[in-house]
Structures are given as C-alpha cells and as structure tokens.
C-alpha cells in the first residue's frame, strides 16, 4: 500500500514533554475529548466512538500533513497538542503555513501559565525546525480565554465568519510576544 508510518518526534521545553500519541493513549484521549469540559471549546461537539478513535489513529500514523502529541508535565499526561499543514498538497516536511492546536485536559493546569508551555514548544518547532512562515488557527468567538491566550502569544485576527475567528502568527510577532512568557517558564527548578 506504500503508506509509511512517520518517524516519532519528541519535543522538550518549558517544563513539558510532547511525545507522539501511541495506541495505549487512545482511550484516555477519547475520554478527554468527549468530556464536555473539553468538547465545549472544540469546533465539533460530536462524541467520538472507540471505532472512530481507532480509525483516526490509524490515519494519523502515516498522514504526512499532521502530527499529534501527548503533553506530559512531571511525567504525567495533561493534554494533547497537534499540528497540521494549512495549504492543500503540502506536508510537514516543508510547510508554508501550519495550524497548531491543543487542549489541556487536566483542570489543575487549564488556564495555568503552564498551559503556555506546550504552545511554546510547538511554535518553536514549527518556526525553527519546520520553517513555517506563519501559524494560523480558528477559534470560536465565544472562547474569550483562547482569544486572550493567543493574543498574548502575538496572534492577530485576520478574518471573522459567523461565530468563528481566524487568527495568524508571524515569526516576528511570536518572538516579541513569547519572550516574557518563555522567561517565566525557563527559570531553574528545584527538582
């Protein structure tokens, strides 16, 4: 069939580790995703069945246009992050625009400054290693916390349609905005 499973990519930084999702993670992730506390912020609130979760996992193993990670803090899973190419026909080998997304399932850290950590790791990876020229995201207008969070990272609004707003981030805006956040998350630890 010619489909090649992608090589794993593990990212470390700002107190968190992001590692590729494996089969053993699937049920936990499916529970997280179906929890109304998480799904209310997603573009789709449809519940995901075990079969759908499995099919999704089989697909992302080889799809060169997306990658999904489990976020770990102090070796414990706290959420999920992913990236996908924005432009049809491109792959993560050399993307022009990338669409990152994440959710923090562990309520102790949702809205915590720690929630910036996986975003910083992913954004650094997209700009510095993948060479992306821009990051884009779609957020619900009602998700004020996400809009504020992304504004803090340097995102600017580029389009609004109905209850959705599209935002974009350039490397320059990211570098300027992220510096103070990185400083907070990069201090020496006691552990």
């Amino acid at each position, binding site marked *: 069939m010619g489909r090649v499973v992608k090589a794993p990519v593990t990212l470390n930084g700002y*107190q968190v580790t992001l590692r590729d999702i494996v089969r053993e993670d699937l049920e936990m992730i499916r529970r997280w995703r179906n929890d109304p506390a998480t799904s209310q912020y997603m573009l789709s609130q449809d519940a995901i069945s075990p079969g759908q979760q499995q099919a999704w996992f089989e697909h992302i193993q080889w799809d060169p246009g997306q990658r999904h990670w489990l976020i770990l803090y102090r070796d414990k899973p706290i959420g999920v992050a992913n990236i996908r190419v924005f432009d049809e026909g491109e792959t993560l080998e050399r993307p022009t625009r990338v669409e990152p997304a994440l959710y923090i399932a562990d309520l102790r850290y949702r*809205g*915590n*400054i720690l929630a910036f950590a996986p975003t910083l790791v992913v954004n650094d990876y997209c700009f510095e290693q993948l060479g992306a020229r821009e990051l884009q995201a779609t957020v619900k207008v009602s998700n004020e916390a996400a809009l*504020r969070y992304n504004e803090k990272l340097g995102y600017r609004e580029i389009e609004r349609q109905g209850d959705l707003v599209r935002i974009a981030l350039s490397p320059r805006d990211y570098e300027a905005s992220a510096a103070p956040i990185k400083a*907070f*998350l990069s*201090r020496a*630890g*006691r552990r």
Partner: protein
Amino acid sequence: MSSNQQILVEGFSTALAIPQEQVTDDLAYNSIPQWDSIAHMTLVAELESRFDVMMDTDDIIDMSSVARARDILGKYGVTFD
C-alpha cells in the same frame, strides 16, 4: 495584619485589579476572571518586586491561591506572623 501580609494583599489587589477585601486565603487561580494565566504573570512579577524574590518555575506554576502564595514566599525567606 503583619506588614508582609498587608504587602501580599496589596500585591494581589494591584496585580489582579480587585479590591483588597476580595484577597482572602481561599482566593484561587482561575476562580475569578481577573486571575487567569496572563494575569498570573503580572501577579508573579508584582509579588517578586514587592518581596524582592525571584521564584523558580515550579513555584510559579504551583502558586494556585493566596494561601499557597504565602507558603511559597515562605520558602524564599518571607515571614508572615
């Protein structure tokens, strides 16, 4: 209240733009709209400036309430009567 307790209350009040009366021990991170992840960075900077300390990242992340802030500042030599 001891002077350090008053400084703590004033620090929270200023950083979060809330009345001092609202700064009680059980005031917790994300329990009010004013204390979100962004305001948290302002709060940390305010407390560090007032108490002349520099917290490490673990403590910044763990500073989840006023009571916890007092405990954490204690680790940096700040005493509260």
